[in-house]
């Protein structure tokens, strides 16, 4: 970022321009919201369960206007714009949205971990009858024979949470050691098998392809190119041999292969990033502002 953008001091005329733009935008939003109803949400409730509904359902009379969800859409739009405002410069709106994000996501993760793993897979294994009696009526109230095995993660888990206490940092090292050890154990095998042995195996392809006793020129060229490319790229990674002479030439080809690889990766990355932006704009234009209606959700408007 260049110095002038980072400078938080705005000139007076700049502030005026923004104020006018802001007012115009706000006026337009009020028009869209009040006259057209943009950003409204609808809901259907049957048997005490809620279901999202569209404007069409509302028009027909099989859904009602939902104030909570409408406010939700406007808040979602506000937060979206808060985050986008960072593109102009860092500002309190962005910082606010970021702070909310951090808080909500940490709590969300915690709640999920609690209800989907800690309760059914840990507490529910050790005290199934208790958990069955209030939280998970579908669970069997009978303990498994190997229920005592779950005392170990219970103890290790308690030790892990000890990290929050200012004293006794060594206590959390035991569960940490277990986590590190099992990660290493799982990965060692997984990577060697899938990414090392299998990849060597996948590269051993016939360089002369013959199907139905007919020589397949194009297939053979592809396979030859593939094998040469893999080998030369691997040679480039061999740092124990000096990259001169023949090795140097081969490793140069290896570099080319890698450059093509990185170019492809860049192209694909761009592709992905744009889709992530598109879905956000779709939300703003479709659900919030009602400027577009690709799915015909709002007939007769």
């Amino acid at each position, binding site marked *: 970022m260049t110095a002038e953008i980072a400078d938080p001091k705005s000139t007076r005329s700049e502030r005026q321009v923004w104020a006018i733009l802001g007012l115009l935008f706000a006026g337009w939003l009020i028009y869209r919201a009040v006259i057209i109803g943009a950003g409204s949400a609808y809901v259907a409730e049957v048997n005490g369960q809620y279901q999202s509904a569209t404007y069409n359902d509302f028009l027909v009379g099989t859904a009602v206007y939902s104030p909570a969800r409408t406010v939700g859409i406007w808040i979602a739009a506000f937060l979206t714009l808060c985050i986008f405002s960072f593109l102009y410069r860092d500002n309190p709106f962005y910082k606010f949205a970021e702070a909310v994000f951090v808080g909500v996501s940490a709590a969300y993760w915690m709640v999920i971990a609690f209800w*989907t793993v800690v309760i059914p897979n840990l507490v529910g294994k050790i005290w199934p009858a208790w958990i069955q009696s209030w939280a998970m009526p579908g669970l*069997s109230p009978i303990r498994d024979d190997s229920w005592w095995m779950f005392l170990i993660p219970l103890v290790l888990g308690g030790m892990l949470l000890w990290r929050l206490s200012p004293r006794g940092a060594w206590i959390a090292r035991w569960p940490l050691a277990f986590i590190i050890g099992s990660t290493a154990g799982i990965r060692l095998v997984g990577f060697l*098998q899938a990414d090392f042995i299998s990849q060597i195996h996948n590269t051993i392809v016939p360089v002369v392809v013959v199907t139905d006793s007919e020589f397949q020129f194009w297939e053979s060229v592809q396979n030859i190119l593939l094998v040469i490319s893999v080998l030369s790229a691997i040679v480039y990674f061999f740092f124990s041999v000096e990259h001169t002479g023949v090795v140097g030439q081969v490793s140069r080809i290896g570099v080319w292969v890698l450059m093509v690889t990185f170019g492809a990766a860049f192209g694909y990355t*761009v592709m*992905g990033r744009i*889709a*992530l932006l*598109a879905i956000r704009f779709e939300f703003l234009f479709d659900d919030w502002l009602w400027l577009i209606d690709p799915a015909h959700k709002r007939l007769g408007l």
Partner: protein
Amino acid sequence: MPMQGLQNLDRRWIFLLMAIAVAVPILFGLQFPESPSQLARDVFNEIEQLEEGDNVLMAWDYDPSTEGELGPMAIAFARHCCEKKVNMFFITLLPVGPQMIEKAITEVIQADFPDLVYGQDYVNLGYKSGYEGVIKVIVTDLKGLYTTDARGTNIDQIPMCKPISSVQEMDLIVNVSGSYPGTKEWVQYAVTPHQGEIRMVAGCTGVQAPLLYPYIPGQLKGLLGAIKGAAEYEALVVSEYLGNDPDQLYLEAKRRMGPQLVAHLLMIGLIIAGNVIYFRQRRMPSPQQN
């Protein structure tokens, strides 16, 4: 035009260009035809050759952060599997994944296939923490971690789960992968140790796709890369099952390819512009340097 000025162009102008390149095609509903590539066909055929009642593990490993790329794929996968009347077992390794499963269930299964019965035709097993550790367990012992489904029903009382003891009994894994853990981990801990027994197809983000190519075709039967892969596969599903006037839900990837094309052009333009400026500037040394 002073090159110096362009070189130091405020990047907010580029941001604005990007915003326009994506926004305008969305506002005007720009769309283009799709011609499916071989990899998308491979994915399609792999699901197409399943038979009614086959067991399919729908591993939905994505969340809102990658929904733009992967949402349409997941919807198309779900639709295709419903059409094939296979038994669908939804699971996820990401904390926010259950919401994505919920979406597939409400928007595709409950909306368009109301006859499918929960617990007999599809089941939502939900989320478990542990990343690849989860795969490691369920590949030999599904019930070691999944004692209930996401709704708290005892797994032994769910008809379609009764005969299943591990992932090895699945006829196919359909994985939608946003980041870590995702397709790579499924290949490493499920497919590779049981090669020949477990088959898998995947749809993944643009960032992951190039990295997964080395697994094709031995460890991965087919791969949909980013929104383009989704659009191709979606086109195959639509042309096979949905006729001339498909529900707009199943054309989401196609719609999203409009902004994609314009934005790609902008990217190419930006790179070329950047280079033109750079080379011009190199030829005439800037005054400050002497």
